[in-house]
């Protein structure tokens, strides 16, 4: 049961409506704190009131709940919403209050309660609501207070409660009703088994009684009459008396066998006498029979003779048949002959027809012969046509060839031209190049010439200088008196001055060589030029002479100009030729791929022309031929224009010929056939006639024979013979046989009987024998009956004995089970030495568990000093009680719980309540108490104990339980995060959550 929300209205110190939402509390502990008198305990009261209609403490009653702070109009109610096993319930309860009406009379409005279930169903009957709440929670108000709340000052309740009270609580919590159920079922089973035993015993006695009647056993009777008959003894007695009866049976048996044998003898005798008598009687009968038979002998004889006659007739039958056969044959043959003659006449008619037809065909063959002659001629004509066509084709081909060759010829001509031109161009080019060469050379010559001239000048100048130098040198060496080496005078008026430029001999020499070189070069060039000019001249280009070209510069220039002009002219010519080349472009392409030279081309040209002419001739010949043939054909067959028509005609003719031949063949064949058939038929007719005559003769002879035969046998006429055949032979024969056999039978029987009977005679003492026999058999029957009765009785007794035995065994078996079940039941129900019932045991073991868990916490809280344990009753190994006591480890002796101090007893109560709630939480089934409220109590602890207590609270596993603590202890305020703060004002109290 987890609280979800609580609404109070005019309840206790809460004047107005206050709603508290518990859903936001995340941790499992919350603290309700506030000053004294603010209304902390009232909140618990509210929950308790909402659920049960009572306050949480004894001293308060619901009547006191209505808040004096609130006015009369405000209703006093508590609405409590809680979750139970994931289902949400809401209960609203109104407190009773006194209402004063206008007339100053007071009315007590009693309490109302409305419960809304998780399904939405609403219960508002007060009693029903209370009952439902108790059902849902599983505890009533008292128990609720003991488990769920530890109210202020009353927390010791559970600790000090008596065993029985604890048992009631625990039973509800741990739903040990099942155990109760268990015990009950054990009880039922045990009862069942004992009942079974008694009923089985009764059955046994009934059986024994039933058997008693037939046994007449006094001992057994006596035994059974006892109040507690021993079944064992009864069985023994029964067995004994059965044995006695069995002895009796044996005696009777022997008597019976004796009687049986005597009876048998008598019967045998009786039988033999009877048999004899019967045989004698039989013989008499047989004799009379024989007499009768003798009387009918005559008839039998007649029948025999008839039979003989029949036999004879039968013998003759085949002959007769033969005769008739032959006659029928004759008839047949006659009909055949008729048919044949008919056929014959038909055939002859056919034959005539065929012959006429054949004549017709023969006439036709004349015409055919004509056809045959025309065919080869036509064929020849066809050939001619064919040849004509061939020729035509050939002609066309040749024409094509001609055209081709013409083309080729053209090409060749073109290529010839091109080649010629090419040659021309080449020569022109050569000339051009040589001219340019000459030009260039001329240029160089010019230059060189110039150079040469210059050099010459320089040299001469230099030489002069040199000379002057020499003069100068000499002049220097001159003295006035010395003679001049040159002229020899001694006066030197004009002394040569040394030129500025100093020249040596070597330099002069160098200049000279240079000059000579240049001259050489010039000469060479001149020679070259001469060569070239000669070449050109021979080619016919120049008209002017060579030698006067190099005379001077002017002339060189002139030559130069002329050459240029020539060149120019050549160029022009080149252009022209180039144009021509363009015309001949295709030829160029053709020849590009192959290296033709003019000769080959020319040769080809000639060849081609030859072929051309050849072809021409051919064409002429063919056309002439063709024309002639065509003319001829036209003359022969003017209407025929093509070979095809002729071919068709030929085939037509051929076909006709073939048809004619075929027809002839056919006819010939048919004729042959028919003739053959005709001849055959004639011969057949002849044969048939022969046969007929033969047959007639045979018939005659046969009939004569036959007559003789039947007459010899005894038949006067054919009719007699026929009547004789009509006889029903088999029946008569059967009669005869029967008679004979009967006779035989009787005779044999008689002979047998004779033997059997012998000399004996009819006996008359039969009756006496019969009576004797009967007597003896009667006696036997009674004896037998007695035997049967006795054995039946014995059988019944034995069966009964066996039944009793089996039932007895079952009882024995059952006994064991019964005993054990009974024992278990007694153990479970507490009828045992320890006076401990199963339920109590279970409860006490749960209680032990609770105590164990409580001790874990108590150990911590009291530093292992205190330990809870169950009070052990004196001299009992096992305590059934649920009373508690405290074991103090300091003294090592246990003492009652009530001896604990306030703080210590709070600790014990706290741990017990915590342990209980933990066990309940882990226990599936039973009540679902997962909330706990502790109202004060922590204030009774000193700081060490408080520390321990808080430590214990800390260890509570977070299993979804909620623990609400009311305390003003400041340490708790610090340590517990979620708080519900109740504050008191002049107008009443307020409460609100302060969550972490």
């Amino acid at each position, binding site marked *: 049961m987890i609280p979800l929300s609580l609404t109070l209205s005019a309840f206790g110190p809460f004047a107005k409506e206050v709603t508290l939402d518990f859903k936001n509390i995340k941790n499992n502990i919350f603290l309700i704190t506030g000053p004294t008198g603010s209304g902390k305990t009232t909140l618990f009261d509210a929950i308790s009131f909402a659920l049960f209609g009572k306050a949480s403490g004894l001293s308060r009653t619901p009547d006191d709940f209505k808040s004096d702070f609130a006015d009369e109009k405000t209703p006093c109610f508590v609405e409590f919403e809680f979750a139970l096993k994931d289902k949400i319930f809401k209960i609203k309860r109104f407190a009773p209050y006194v209402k004063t009406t206008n007339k100053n009379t007071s009315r007590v409005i009693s309490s109302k309660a409305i419960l809304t279930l998780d399904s939405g169903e609403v219960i508002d009957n007060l009693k029903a609501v209370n009952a439902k709440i108790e059902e849902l929670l599983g505890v009533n108000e008292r128990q609720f207070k003991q488990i769920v709340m530890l109210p202020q000052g009353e927390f010791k309740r559970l600790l000090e409660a008596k065993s029985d009270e604890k048992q009631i609580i625990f039973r509800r919590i741990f739903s040990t009703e099942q155990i109760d159920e268990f015990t009950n079922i054990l009880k039922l089973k045990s009862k069942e088994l004992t009942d079974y035993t008694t009923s089985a015993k009764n059955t046994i006695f009934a059986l024994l009684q039933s058997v008693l009647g037939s046994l007449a056993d006094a001992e057994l009777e006596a035994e059974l009459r006892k109040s507690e008959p021993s079944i064992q003894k009864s069985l023994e007695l029964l067995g004994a008396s059965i044995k006695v009866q069995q002895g009796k049976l044996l005696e009777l048996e022997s008597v019976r066998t004796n009687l049986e044998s005597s009876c048998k003898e008598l019967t045998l005798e009786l039988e033999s006498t009877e048999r004899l008598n019967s045989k004698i009687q039989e013989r008499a009968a047989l004799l009379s029979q024989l007499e009768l038979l003798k009387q009918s002998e005559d008839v039998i004889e007649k029948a025999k003779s008839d039979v003989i006659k029949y036999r004879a007739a039968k013998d003759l039958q085949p002959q007769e048949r033969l005769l008739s056969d032959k006659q029928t044959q004759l008839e047949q043959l006659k009909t055949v002959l008729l048919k044949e003659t008919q056929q014959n006449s038909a055939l002859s008619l056919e034959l005539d027809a065929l012959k006429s037809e054949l004549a017709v065909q023969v006439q036709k063959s004349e015409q055919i012969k004509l056809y045959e002659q025309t065919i080869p001629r036509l064929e020849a004509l066809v050939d001619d046509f064919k040849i004509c066509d061939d020729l035509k084709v050939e002609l066309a081909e040749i024409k094509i060839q001609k055209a081709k060759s013409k083309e080729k010829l053209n090409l060749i001509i073109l290529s010839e031209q091109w080649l010629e031109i090419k040659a021309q161009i080449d020569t022109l080019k050569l000339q051009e190049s040589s001219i340019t060469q000459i030009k260039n050379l001329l240029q160089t010559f010019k230059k060189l010439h110039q150079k040469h001239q210059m050099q010459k000048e320089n040299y001469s100048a230099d030489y002069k200088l040199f000379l002057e130098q020499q003069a100068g040198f000499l002049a220097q060496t001159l003295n006035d008196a010395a003679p001049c080496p040159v002229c020899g005078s001694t006066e030197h008026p004009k002394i040569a001055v040394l030129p500025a430029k100093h020249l040596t001999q070597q330099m002069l020499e160098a200049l000279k060589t240079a000059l000579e070189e240049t001259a050489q070069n010039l000469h060479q060039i001149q020679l070259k030029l001469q060569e070239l000019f000669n070449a050109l001249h021979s080619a016919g280009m120049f008209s002017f002479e060579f030698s006067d070209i190099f005379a001077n510069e002017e002339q060189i220039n002139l030559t130069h100009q002329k050459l240029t002009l020539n060149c120019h002219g050549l160029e022009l010519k080149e252009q022209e030729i180039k144009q021509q080349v363009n015309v001949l472009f295709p030829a160029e392409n053709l020849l590009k791929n192959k290296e033709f030279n003019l000769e080959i081309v020319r040769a080809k040209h000639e060849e081609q022309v030859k072929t051309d002419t050849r072809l021409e001739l051919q064409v002429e010949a063919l056309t002439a031929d063709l024309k002639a043939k065509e003319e001829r054909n036209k003359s022969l067959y003017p209407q025929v224009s093509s070979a095809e028509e002729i071919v068709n005609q030929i085939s037509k003719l051929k076909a006709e010929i073939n048809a004619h031949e075929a027809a002839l063949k056919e006819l010939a064949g048919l004729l042959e056939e028919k003739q053959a058939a005709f001849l055959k038929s004639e011969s057949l007719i002849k044969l048939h006639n022969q046969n007929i005559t033969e047959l007639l003769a045979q018939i005659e002879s046969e009939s004569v024979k036959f007559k003789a035969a039947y007459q010899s046998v005894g038949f006067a006429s054919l009719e007699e013979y026929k009547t004789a055949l009509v006889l029903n032979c088999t029946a008569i024969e059967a009669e005869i046989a029967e008679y004979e056999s009967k006779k035989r039978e009787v005779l044999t029987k008689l002979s047998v009987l004779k033997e059997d009977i012998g000399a004996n005679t009819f006996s008359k003492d039969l009756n006496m024998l019969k009576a004797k026999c009967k007597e003896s058999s009667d006696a036997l029957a009674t004896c037998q009956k007695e035997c049967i009765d006795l054995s039946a009785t014995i059988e019944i007794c034995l069966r009964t004995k066996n039944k009793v035995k089996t039932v007895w065994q079952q009882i024995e078996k059952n006994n064991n089970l019964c005993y054990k079940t009974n024992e278990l039941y007694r153990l479970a129900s507490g009828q045992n030495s320890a006076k401990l019932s199963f339920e109590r045991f279970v409860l006490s073991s749960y209680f032990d568990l609770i105590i164990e868990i409580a001790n*874990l916490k108590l150990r911590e809280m009291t530093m292992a000093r205190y330990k809870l344990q169950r009070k052990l009753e004196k001299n009992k190994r096992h305590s059934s009680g649920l009373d508690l006591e405290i074991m103090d480890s300091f003294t090592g002796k246990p003492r009652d719980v009530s001896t604990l101090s306030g703080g210590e007893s709070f600790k014990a109560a706290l741990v017990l309540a915590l342990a209980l709630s*933990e066990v309940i939480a882990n226990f599936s089934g039973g009540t679902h108490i997962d909330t706990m409220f502790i109202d004060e109590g922590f204030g009774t602890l000193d700081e060490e104990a408080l520390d321990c207590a808080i430590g214990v609270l800390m260890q509570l596993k977070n299993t979804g339980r909620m623990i609400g603590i009311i305390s003003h202890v400041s340490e708790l305020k610090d340590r517990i995060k979620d708080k519900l703060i109740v504050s008191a004002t002049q107008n009443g109290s307020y409460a609100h959550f302060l969550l972490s």
Partner: protein
Amino acid sequence: MKILHTADWHLGKTLAGYSLINDQAFILHNLKKLLKEENIDILIIAGDIYDKSVPSIEAIRLLDNFLYEVTTETNVKVLAIAGNHDSAARLAFGNRLYQSQGLHIIGEFESTLPKLTFADDFGSVNFFFLPYFSLEKAMHVFDLKFKNLSEAFTAIINHNKPNIKTNERNILIAHGFFSYFQQVKNAFSELDVIDSELPIGGMDIIDIGPAEFFDYIALGHLHCAQKVAKDHIRYAGSLLKYSIAEAAQNKSVTIIELKEKGNLKVKTQQLATLHDLCVISGFIDDITQNPQKYVHNPADYIFAKLKDNNVVDGMFRLRQVFDNVLGLSVAANEDINFDAVINKELKQDISGMFKMFFKELTNNKLDDEYLTIVNDVIKDLNK
């Protein structure tokens, strides 16, 4: 600069009825000696100075004496903050008056952390005081909504960042449940915590990450001296062993030698105590006959885990031998696995329970014949 970092004095605490005031006086005396010997410059007390909001008279007297002696006999500056056990306003009474004497006690939490600067050879050292704060207080002070304490802490650091010169050395003094990780289970693997240090109803662990840039963070609240992932973030631990769960811890104070920025040396120093607190385990007879085998000083606070199943007058006997017995437990009270117990017991079905019942009464196992009967009955029951 030499700093001594301590916390969680819990002056006035009683343990199992024994007042520890004398032990606390003894160790504070030794602490004063240590301050003199080590030439400490700054003493940091990082919260939980008193055990209760309204401390006992002896506790007040003890603290009064100590602080007076330290401030008069030495040049040590005392920097203290209020913890969750202290009452902030009461503890910080007269703080403004003390400052001139070198005593600074910051009780109430403010959005701007009080800053105190001292100079040493290497420059200035800034101390920031962050006393214990609750989520409500933080939300109230900032007028903002925080989801958890970590968020509040981040906001505090961010708010104060402009005031912190990161080129200088800065030290933060704080009191709370700080960890490097947000996850509870990681925190537990990381830190040594005893149960009473856990908050109820929710784990509000504060992520120390945002404050990592401080040169040293002096923390208080957890009673075991330890570092929080990094060497410069430490809990000093309590002065004395204050519960049986702490019996195995080594108590110490932390001394920090602070040189230039980036250079600090940390060491722990144990102080002599008047009594030790230990848990001894053995048989009652052996313990009472040979107490010296288990404990050096019979005056120590002893918790006896007796191996006997039940002892009569155990407490009385122990008190003959030892002066201060905190309590005893017997072997029969050994830890039981809750889940195993509850599952075993409750998951029994009727036939199982009946078997147990049968065994209990007749001391025999339920043989096959009986078993078939029982199964039949159960079958009928289920119909």
